[in-house]
């Protein structure tokens, strides 16, 4: 008898672990080779990631598309809880499940719709990354042709990731640490605020990803652009309404209506 599921098309795929590289104590890059060719992914999109089919942990976890390298899709992950801890034990050849790419991603900033999306060549892209929010904006940097000014913040200097690479990919990099142990003392959004003082905000387009507090601060900078939400998700595909982001038009779904929202659309309180 023919299986019903074989009739259908989806972007759920088993993927082989190609590499699992430790950057420092709590940050890793996982390289995955999906069994099925996946469309895209575009910067700002994400995958729902499942370590195995055991029922605890139950839900998949969202991780941004970080980059492609050596024929693998890579994600940059930070160890904060149960799944990310289990991920550190993954070894090349093991199999995981990914669903994606999901979400809208950043607007098509270099193609034909660039002007309309506020990404005209005349504007300087300001990219703000708080912590592992870096994973979301990283693929933007390459796409932005080395013109971006990146503000990247961590709690402390030792936590800063991939700094040399970021400098190569960006026009300018401002590092920020909350304890002042490296770069600007404060958050990445505060560093951007200082930078913007006296400048014409119309000359810039903003791209920001990080914790909600940071997105709020970035939204308040007065620069047009985009923020990417990292609201908790259960399904990642728009059916559970778990990932509510407050907007003027009511709650929207980070996973399906986002994760990228125009600045001003998503409200933070």
């Amino acid at each position, binding site marked *: 008898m023919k299986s019903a599921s074989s009739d259908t098309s989806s972007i759920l795929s088993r993927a082989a672990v190609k590499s699992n590289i430790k950057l420092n104590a709590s940050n890793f890059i996982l390289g995955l080779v999906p069994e099925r060719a996946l469309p895209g992914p575009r910067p700002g999109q994400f995958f729902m990631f499942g370590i195995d089919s055991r029922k605890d942990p*139950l839900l998949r976890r969202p991780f941004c598309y970080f980059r492609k390298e050596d024929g693998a899709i890579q994600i940059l992950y930070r160890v904060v809880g149960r799944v990310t801890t289990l991920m550190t034990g993954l070894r090349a050849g093991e199999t995981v499940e990914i669903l994606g790419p999901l979400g809208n991603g950043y607007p098509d900033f270099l193609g034909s719709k660039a002007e309309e999306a506020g990404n005209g060549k005349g504007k300087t892209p300001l990219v703000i990354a708080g912590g592992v929010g870096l994973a979301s904006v990283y693929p933007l940097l390459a796409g932005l042709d080395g013109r971006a000014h990146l503000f990247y913040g961590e709690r402390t200097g030792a936590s800063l990731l991939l700094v040399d690479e970021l400098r190569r990919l960006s026009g300018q990099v401002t590092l920020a640490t909350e304890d002042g142990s490296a770069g600007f003392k404060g958050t990445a959004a505060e560093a951007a605020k200082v930078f913007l003082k006296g400048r014409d905000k119309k000359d810039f387009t903003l791209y920001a990803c990080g914790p909600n507090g940071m997105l709020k601060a970035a939204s308040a900078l007065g620069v047009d652009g985009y923020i990417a939400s990292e609201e908790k998700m259960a399904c990642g595909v728009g059916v559970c309404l778990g990932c509510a982001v407050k907007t003027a038009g009511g709650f929207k779904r980070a996973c399906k209506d986002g994760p990228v929202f125009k600045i001003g659309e998503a409200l933070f309180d």
Partner: protein
Amino acid sequence: MTDLRVGIGSLKLKNPVMTASGTAGYGAELAEFFDPSLLGALVMKGISLEPWQGNPPPRITETPCGMINSIGLQNVGLEMFLREKLPFARQWDVPVIANILGTSADEYVRLAAELDGAGVEGIELNVSCPNIKKGGISFGRDMAVFARLVGAVRKTVKSAALIVKLTPDAPVAEFARAAEESGADAVSLINSIPAMAIDVNTRRPLVKNVIGGLSGPAVKPIAVRMVYQASRAVRVPVIGMGGITEGRDAVEFMLAGAHAVAVGTAIFSDPMAPLKILDGIRAYMENHGIKRVSAITGSVRT
């Protein structure tokens, strides 16, 4: 050849697997993954007369083998449902069951009347909602209020199958019997179970609303027990749900007495879950030489 058809009152399903309300939206997102016509029925996200905003985030948190949600019944409201969501779902060859929410009996009756007139195949009453007139205690926990509500909606509903979704924090056998006596064509259970989780570091509840509903595999043994008790208390069909993630789980509910099953939380881990569960039921029937799926219902050997 396996016969997967089941009947829920006037409702004829091509197989016993449906989506659980609130876990499959209005069908559109799932249709990106598979053809909804392959399912027994599509149960829609709960609908109220006016659109509801729902609760502020965080709305979900994971718990051992389960999750708590406090979506707060966010929905587009009846008008938008009738104008956009229902017509869209009509493109698939699958019965549509609307799930309705009110804060007064009157609201339920008006919703049921409109939807019945609009031609949905089933109407599922979510009685876990707070009854504003009764100081917020849910319709599903006060027997007299509950029976009156079901009776009133029964009078309104002419063509659709009337399904009453029982609350798991009340004695299910008694409420199932009351639903049947008040004219329900079927009962469904379980809804999510009131639950709470706290982040010990921030000391804050992990869902903003403090208390939310527990669902997923963790609740399955409670749900199977309730389906067993409810199905022995009534003659109308029982739709079982709560933690079904594999075909085997669905069979377990049917053995306990369910005529059909609904898949909820499992969809979140895998949008294809309902189809995989259907495949699993089919495989079970083939392995055990069972020709008609309805033969499984209630056949647990106690």
